[in-house]
């Protein structure tokens, strides 16, 4: 079972930026790319738990603000040579409203 929670609109998120959502599974970062795609990830870098929402967004990636690991927004994996993965969450755009799916999409062991 997945709950789809209305968290706001895409206009609430700066382009090439992110906002956070407080949830029972922890803080979630919601990203908006230059092409207005949106992605939701647990707001922790697989390296040292840096808040990814504070990083610089480029293409479909974000650079962690603490040590510059680059995380793929699509699947949460760290760009080589770094290894690790952040949990992603499903996110839907329904009539301009962003709906966050609140059972984690997949559990991936941290590398």
């Amino acid at each position, binding site marked *: 079972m997945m709950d789809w*929670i*209305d*968290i*706001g609109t895409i206009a*609430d*998120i*700066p*382009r*090439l*930026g992110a*906002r*956070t*959502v*407080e*949830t*029972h599974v922890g*803080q979630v970062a*919601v990203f908006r790319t*230059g092409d207005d795609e949106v992605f939701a990830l647990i707001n922790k870098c697989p390296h*040292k*738990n*840096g*808040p990814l929402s*504070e*990083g*610089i*967004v*480029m*293409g479909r990636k974000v*650079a962690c*603000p*603490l040590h*510059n690991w*680059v995380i793929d927004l699509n699947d949460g994996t760290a760009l080589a040579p770094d290894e690790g993965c952040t949990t992603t969450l499903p996110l839907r755009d329904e009539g301009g409203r962003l709906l*966050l799916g*609140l059972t984690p999409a997949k559990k991936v062991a941290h590398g």
Partner: protein
Amino acid sequence: MNAVSRQRLVVIGNGMAGMRTVEEVLARAPVRYDITVFGAEPHPNYNRIMLSSVLAGEKRIDDIVINPLSWYAENGITLHTGDPVVAIDTAAKTVTAASGLCVAYDKLLLATGSKPLMPPLPGLDLPGVVAFRDIADTDKMLAAAQAKQRAVVIGGGLLGLEAAWGLKRRGMPVALVHLMPTLMERQLDVEAGTLLQRDLSERGLHFFTQAQTERVMGETRAEGLVLADGRTIPADLVVVAIGIRPNIDMGKAADLDINRGILVGDDMATSNPDIYAVGECVEHNGQVFGLVAPIWEQAKVCAARLAGDQIAAYATPALSTRLKITGIDVFSAGKLAAEDDADEEVIFRDASKGVYRKLVVREGKLVGAVMYGDVADGGWYFDLIKGERDIAQSRDHLIFGQGFAEQGCCGGAKAGLDVASMADDSQVCGCNGVSKGAIVKAITEKGLTSLDEVRAHTKASASCGMCTPAVQAILSFVTGADASAPEALCKCTDHGHDHVRHAILDQRLKSMDSVRKALGWKTEDGCAKCRPALNYYLLCAWPGEYVDDYQSRFINERAHANIQKDGTYSVIPRMWGGVTTPDELRAIADVADKFNIPSVKVTGGQRIDLLGVKKEDLPAVWGDLNKAGLVSGHGYAKGLRTVKTCVGSEWCRFGTQDSTGLGIKLEKLMWGSWTPHKVKLAVSGCPRNCAEATIKDIGIICTEAGYDMVIGGNGGIEVRVTDELTRLSTEAEVLEYASAFMQLYREEGHYLERTAPYVERVGMAHIKAHILDDDARRKALYARFLFSQSFAQDDPWAERATGGIDAHEFQPLAVVS
């Protein structure tokens, strides 16, 4: 091409000497031989000289491979790695490897190098004792470094010092034991050796000189050394680096004439005319070899002979030595000291700057040079020694270096190498014997544009790398200014910082998109490296016009606070010149209480840091601080940070001027400015320099006569003492000159380049030309700085605490219960 007529060349030894000879053979007679190479190590040919850089973490193994496996394939060379030759049958003309493989030869080349010299000490066979010779040794040392163990190095020559420094850089406590009273005694005189020991001691190495090792302690593994005088040095890793001896095993196997090394004649042939030998395994005219320059010469002669040349003859060239320890510059060539009455020594010493030079002159010619500290003129002296040039004309100025001796005036600080005045036959790369003329020729004829290309075509700077700046300077000189910044800004572009900055101005590019479009960026929205850089360059180029791109700022500059490792922030209000009031302190205390801020600390820049503030509390914290008159200290910014001061003439009995007041004026003038990297100032009220102005980006030291301005200092990872810019007589002048330098740095600095490397890169002469020599230029810089500041001095805290700017930054998008 007739394959049948090809002869068989077998090379034993897959190292630098052997493969350089093969390269030279291929260049001269590409189809003469079928070539088979045997190597004992399981690697392709790599640059052994650079192992010390691998150890120090400056290079990776991949970076030091000279001939990758593809090179062997492309040149039709059969390579057997990890398979040492064990027998040579000179009658049947075959070699047999450990694997049993047997290969016939027409010509055999021995290039088996050397073995580490191991003293006859008890305990040397214990685990934990290593030599420093190959990749396997280096791996062992790195493993020990990772385990954070202690190391002791035996041997204070080039190799031992580089090993010790590499281990130190890897975080190990390192002691070094040396038999002689001073370090590198074969390359340096006593004075230079003593300076070297002093500088390395300051960097944390521990020295035991005149120390004879008695034995290695330990039962099952090395636990340290016992010296002959009874002292013990505990250690988990013992590195033996007292020297090398020629590896003559193959010479014995082939029954060749042998002394210390395998004996060769001027033609590089051994006592068997079908067997040649090169490199560290040979002995020529009673001499054995460890430096790369004579070995390259041997490779050249040997290859010529193998290619059919009947005349080529080897003679040992003059040698020079440099030490590869970052930040320590040592050079020597020829005689180290006067040997008799006919030799004269000329000595120059500047103890405070750590500069020492000694020249040895005989009968109007330079015959030796020892340099410590500043070695920029080493190549020039070496040329004079090798060329046996008559120096009678310039003898009196010779010690001050090329610029002075040839022009008779110093003309301010010399900014690097003067390429234009270098003779064409002047040697640039000592390892590979490449002259300036050869480099210029290759660049112009082959249209080379990058350092890597120049390396590939000429070999210049391809061995030890010490001459890289000189090769770079020549490349820039020949191809124009662009090449001086070959390093691309990031992976999104091939252009360097300078090119991008010029294009922004020349093409009047005023947005990040237009820069990326005009310069052919490879990515749509750049990356975390170029976006902040472009944002700054545009902000600096078009003050008042360009609108700051918030999403291209690092988080600290978005949140106007410093992110900490737990995701909380630190808040530092500005304290002008380090001066505060009871009311301000009360406000800070109240804020700390009200928001449960866990840590309050005084910073190194004379301010107070509130650590552990939650992001959502930041606007409210700032609001309360604002009410007490406190504004952002920009402790998070690539911009003006602090202006540190001492109390000066207002209180101090030594103070000569109002240093506190001047510091406050400077801070009020400069706060809010964005710069390539952070900028810190200090004003000291007298030469005792309590504000530590000589390690700041801009420092002012007050004297009775006025104000000394110094620039380009840094107290960070690599400490750099400032250079003196000028002496000024009024506060107004200080404000003008400091602003002019600030603006010059803003306009020319590469993003994330502090003033210390900036000053080193452009040179003091360049800076003086803009700020001292030309009043109009300085005043224009000052005016541009003031104009830029008119848009910069808004307190970012107030804008966010009460102005509602960037409110989304500090609140979650949603809270799901």
